[in-house]
């Protein structure tokens, strides 16, 4: 049984106004526990709406969202329980921090779950490690931290609820390269240690290639492709037509191939690409 599944889900904004717009159109898809799925699509393709449908912030106009086989809207009053199981980290989540200390802010979700002090503390400590928040930051005000640290505190705030599905909307936007790598590495570790499903919305194809198992491509409110990283990125021309792309290193390999070099183009991450280029250089016999 898939962990989370949508069946013909449709959502419209501004119903019965001149601005009515279908943001998600008849979308059916299944996600399994333990995988990391990247969601890509140009701006306005419906990605953000789609992820909000998964945790019950938006209610589909038609169709169903099934979590562990049960319709999440079966008992609308219990929708909060769904949100604890399907954690959603919004874009620029550091703007939601509000408590006096990082410890209290990370504990906001667990406290809402109705846990006792001891359990809350336990959850906070665990989440701080999972998100990579250093222990000495825990008693500081979240407003004194650097951008990358704030981002990790905000992510810890969602991880603290121990969600089975962790959704992150552009978690690396606006971070410097080092902070970006750290965040990605923490997300991957969360999936590996807890066996949770991770959905990663991103505009950076490098981020997607670095940690995802599968990729879902959205365009104009519909799902256009869903497959492994190789299956999706090897359809570069179609992606390009949708305003998307593939990782920079893969584009380099592709150009080399087009120029007639015998190179493997099914490579999407930097270390393997480097190895491939070194191999090519050796094969073609260029001396240092």
């Amino acid at each position, binding site marked *: 049984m898939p962990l989370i599944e949508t069946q013909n889900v449709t959502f419209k904004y501004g119903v019965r106004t001149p601005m009515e717009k279908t943001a998600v159109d008849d979308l059916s898809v299944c996600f399994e526990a333990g995988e990391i799925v990247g969601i890509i699509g140009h701006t306005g393709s419906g990605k953000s709406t789609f992820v909000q449908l998964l945790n019950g*912030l938006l209610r589909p106009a038609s169709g169903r969202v099934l979590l562990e086989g049960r319709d999440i809207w079966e008992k609308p009053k219990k929708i909060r329980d769904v949100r604890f199981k399907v954690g959603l980290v919004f874009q620029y989540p550091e*703007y939601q921090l*509000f408590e006096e200390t990082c410890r209290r802010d990370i504990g906001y*979700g667990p406290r809402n779950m109705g846990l006792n002090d001891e359990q809350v503390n336990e959850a906070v400590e665990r989440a701080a490690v999972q998100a990579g928040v250093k222990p000495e930051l825990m008693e500081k005000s979240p407003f004194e931290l650097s951008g990358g640290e704030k981002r990790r505190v905000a992510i810890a705030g969602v991880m603290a*609820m121990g969600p089975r599905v962790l959704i992150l909307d552009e978690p690396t936007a606006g971070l410097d390269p080092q902070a970006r790598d750290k965040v990605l590495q923490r997300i991957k570790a969360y999936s590996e240690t807890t066996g949770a499903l991770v959905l990663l919305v991103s505009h950076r194809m490098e981020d997607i290639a670095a940690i995802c198992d599968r990729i879902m491509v959205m365009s104009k409110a519909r799902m256009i492709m869903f497959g492994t990283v190789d299956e999706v990125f090897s359809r570069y021309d179609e992606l390009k037509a949708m305003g998307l792309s593939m990782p920079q290193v893969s584009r380099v390999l592709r150009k080399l191939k087009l120029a007639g070099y015998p190179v493997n183009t099914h490579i999407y991450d930097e270390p393997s690409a480097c190895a491939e280029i070194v191999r090519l250089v050796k094969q073609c016999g260029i001396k240092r």
Partner: protein
Amino acid sequence: MDITFGQYYPSKSPVHRLDPRVKLIFVLVYIVTIFLGTSFVGLGLCTAFLITAVIISRLPVRLFAKAIKPILPIIIFTAIINLFYAGGDPLFYIFSIAVTKQGVLTSLLVVVRIILLIAGSSMLTFTTTPTSLTDGLERLLSPLTVFRLKVHELAMMMTIALRFIPTLTEETDKIMNAQKARGADIDSGGLFKRVKALVPVFIPLLVSSFRRAFDLAVAMECRCYTGGEGRTRMKIFKLRCADYLALGIMIVLLASVIVINFVLGLV
């Protein structure tokens, strides 16, 4: 959040193209006229005028219904109060309280008056963009600079405040969703619990408002903004034929209501 009340409705009707200063004065005089017009004939004239203006402005009528809806309770309340407190000849009794002919008439008058007031002033905001509205206000108040009133700064503050309403609304929605995703329970519980549940929304909102304010101040200074002194404007208002015509209509309306009320003494 629904903030349709008083929002600009884009169109290119003659009313939209009137000078904002003319429209501001017009609305002021119109309000005075409504208060002077204590008779049905006078208010009838105002109503006829308003309906004509709505037709010329090509605004959908449902916009006005939406503007009046939020104050409906106030209208009903004042109507009921006036119904019982007018005195005069009793028509019939409700729970032994006399309902008089005068009572019915005054409460009808009050209702018509409030609706005319709201519809008329909404007309101004529906047909004028916030920027040209504050521009017009600035020009109208500019004689007051003689009294050291910082008219330009006031108008700029108003423009900025208006400009940020949609931005802050959007921001509030975003933060609310983010906190709901962490299990915030904003829609249930008693008053105290609800107010407490809003703390996680208001603090981030406040922080980001300050951030925005600083950013905006820096951006304005980068473009050498130093306040109103010596500042020229891109759009220079010039009264056109239509504007003079509107002012003429306004004077005729005011005069006829005064004549009807005080000279002819019509009811």
